């Protein structure tokens, strides 16, 4: 068997060399690897990370070489893929989903000279930085718009996986909505996944059937937007500007803009100044952007723009007190705001949400 393998290797190597050597590594380039949980064509989470990667290529041209692996499940395979990226010579590696946390740390331990950047995690090492975006800031604006636009007074919310980021998003949405209409009702469907267009579309249809006339989502595909467009109701996009999927339906969309962060980190790595940090940018930093406000009356648009400005300038904090939990207990007093670390580990609903956090 061994002999056979070495023969095959030799034979193939000969063929390959004859056909022109395939993989010669140019010296001195910074090789950057990305690992995505979904397909780059999801028009959501992974798509936006890949836009960031492209921005890096555009910014630094010949100085960098990027590569990526898409559709990597957050299971036993992730560690191997990350290790493979290291072995392919990448020295800066972005692992762009929460579930890649442990695998990233394990590989990072074995390769102390390689720099790792893990999105949305909370464990850092000397060579593992973390980064995330304050998407809940955008969701506050969505809530306000929804409360204004909804005629039935019921909003549908397609939620992905009950981790703090998603629950904080629902709370922030609801707090925004309540600042406009305290009686707004929200119906939540958990699809237990990040990318499942069929399920997301079904959820949207079910919510519309139950009287929701505005659909918000925290999942990665434009399926819900398409369903809303087909049924003539309004919807919010997620991660990317989904206006092409809902020209009449999209009110706005929270756009994840990773480009500024990626460019900054690559620059530091090129200059040899990269260190492990924890970054949590929001609207102010351009990491969270709002797609153009469309399909809504001018006064609603004006309100949305004002809120966006207020959050950017720091005048408005989505989690400002008083905030009550579902059972009526006061969690944030008047004049105070919820601390970042509490938002990052949030697992309760605010008062007025008629649902239960799954698994609790």
């Amino acid at each position, binding site marked *: 068997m061994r002999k056979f*393998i070495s023969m*095959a*290797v030799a034979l*193939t*190597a000969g*063929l*390959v060399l004859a*056909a*022109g050597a*395939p*993989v010669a590594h140019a010296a001195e380039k910074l090789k950057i*690897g990305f690992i995505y949980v979904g*397909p780059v064509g999801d028009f959501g989470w992974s798509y936006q990370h890949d836009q960031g990667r492209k921005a890096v290529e555009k910014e630094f041209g010949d100085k960098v070489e990027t*590569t*990526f*692996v*898409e*559709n990597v*499940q*957050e*299971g*036993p*395979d992730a*560690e*191997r*893929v990350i*290790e*493979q*990226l290291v*072995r*392919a010579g990448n020295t800066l590696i972005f692992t762009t989903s*929460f*579930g890649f946390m*442990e695998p990233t740390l394990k590989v990072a331990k074995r390769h102390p000279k390689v720099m790792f950047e893990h999105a949305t995690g*909370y464990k850092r090492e000397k060579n593992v930085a973390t980064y995330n975006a304050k998407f809940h800031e955008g969701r506050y604006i969505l809530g306000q718009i929804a409360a204004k636009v909804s005629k039935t007074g019921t909003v549908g919310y397609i939620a992905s*996986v*009950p*981790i*703090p980021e998603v629950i904080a998003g629902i709370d922030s949405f609801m707090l925004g909505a309540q600042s406009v209409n305290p009686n707004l009702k929200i119906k939540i469907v958990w699809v*237990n996944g990040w990318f499942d267009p069929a399920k997301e579309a079904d959820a949207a249809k079910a919510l519309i059937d139950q009287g929701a006339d505005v659909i918000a989502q925290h999942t990665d595909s434009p399926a819900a937007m398409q369903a809303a467009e087909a049924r003539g109701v309004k919807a919010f996009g997620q991660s990317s500007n989904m206006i092409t999927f809902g020209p009449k339906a999209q009110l706005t969309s929270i756009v994840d803009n990773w480009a500024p962060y990626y460019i900054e980190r690559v620059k530091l790595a090129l200059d040899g100044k990269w260190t492990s940090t924890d970054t949590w940018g929001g609207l102010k930093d351009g990491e969270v952007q709002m797609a153009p406000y469309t399909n809504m009356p001018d006064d609603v648009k004006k309100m949305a723009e004002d809120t966006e400005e207020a959050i950017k300038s720091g005048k408005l904090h989505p989690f400002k007190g008083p905030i009550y939990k579902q059972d009526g207990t006061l969690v944030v007093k008047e004049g105070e705001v919820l601390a970042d670390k509490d938002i*990052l*580990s*949030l*697992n309760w609903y605010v008062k007025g949400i008629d649902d239960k956090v*799954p*698994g*609790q």
Partner: protein
Amino acid sequence: MRFRLERQEAVSGIGVLVAPLLALAATLLVGAIMFVVLGLAPLPAFYIYFIEPLTDPWTIQELVVKACPLLLIAIGLSFCYRANRWNIGAEGQYVAGAVLGSWVAIATQGTEAGPWVLPAMLVFAAIGGALWGLIPAFLRVRFGASEILTSLMLVYVAQLGLDYLVRGPWRDPGGFNFPRSVSFDPVATVPLLFEDGRLHAGIVIAGVAVLVAAFVLGRTLVGFSIELGGSAPRAAAFAGFDEKRVTYGVFMVSGALAGLAGIIEVAGPIGNLQPAISPGYGFTAIIAAMLGRLNPFVIVPASLVLALTYIGGEAAQITLRMPFDVTRVFQGTMLISILAADVLVRYRLRRVEGAAHA
């Protein structure tokens, strides 16, 4: 004009040898066309896909790590399929085993529990998988329900149960509410075989499973009763073999091995319980079992070949920036070619003239 597939009475020895080579040639041809259309040079692409992973001790280890769960599950499935019992739900049995085994790890976490923890986890996982497998067996024996449907549906039940546990009662208290259990203690972790790499002791268990399964299926009365029950149920009944017992038995073995695969993966490469613990091993193992002709020894290379297509696909994505879907299409092409070649060797296509009988 119609065609019919007829089983060949005598399968030619040359055919058996030539078939895989023909399949490989067809795969390479289709692959070459696909790569050229995409603007990739075919030879380097093939090299990176099939050969490069075999040139590096690390990737060879990874190949075995990836093949380990496939092998364990496929061996179990070969019991079921030989008996004509179509267990499609190995994925669920894998999860059920992983859950029950992890219970031991989570319950003893942070205590002084000694080296008995891992063996206990393995035993509990086997029991968990077997019990989960016995449900479709019971439904079939008692109510005549199709085991294909029930075993498949139970996959989702198991997955959602796991989901509930890691989000609720078994969530790591220090984990910011993220859906994962605590990391397992060293005594609850499958030991590595070498310092460098991820090759773990689970592969030894898989190896033992191959030998035992080959012996039981090939050399014992139990194996004969499974085989006979599958190919000639009436003959088996006349011979006095109890069909119900065979059904329970094969599902139990199949479930137990899938459960073992689950806990080995969780306590090995993963290290904690979390919502995603399998990239579809239970389903891919069905292909491994079929490719391996339900023969434990042949399932070994079949599992390794399947593992190679995954790892080669990842390498092709990294080095050639080949899209994920292309790597999967290529993988599918290979499997279809192998299965088609297999059919054409064992059967022959014959034209049927005249009135077709329904």
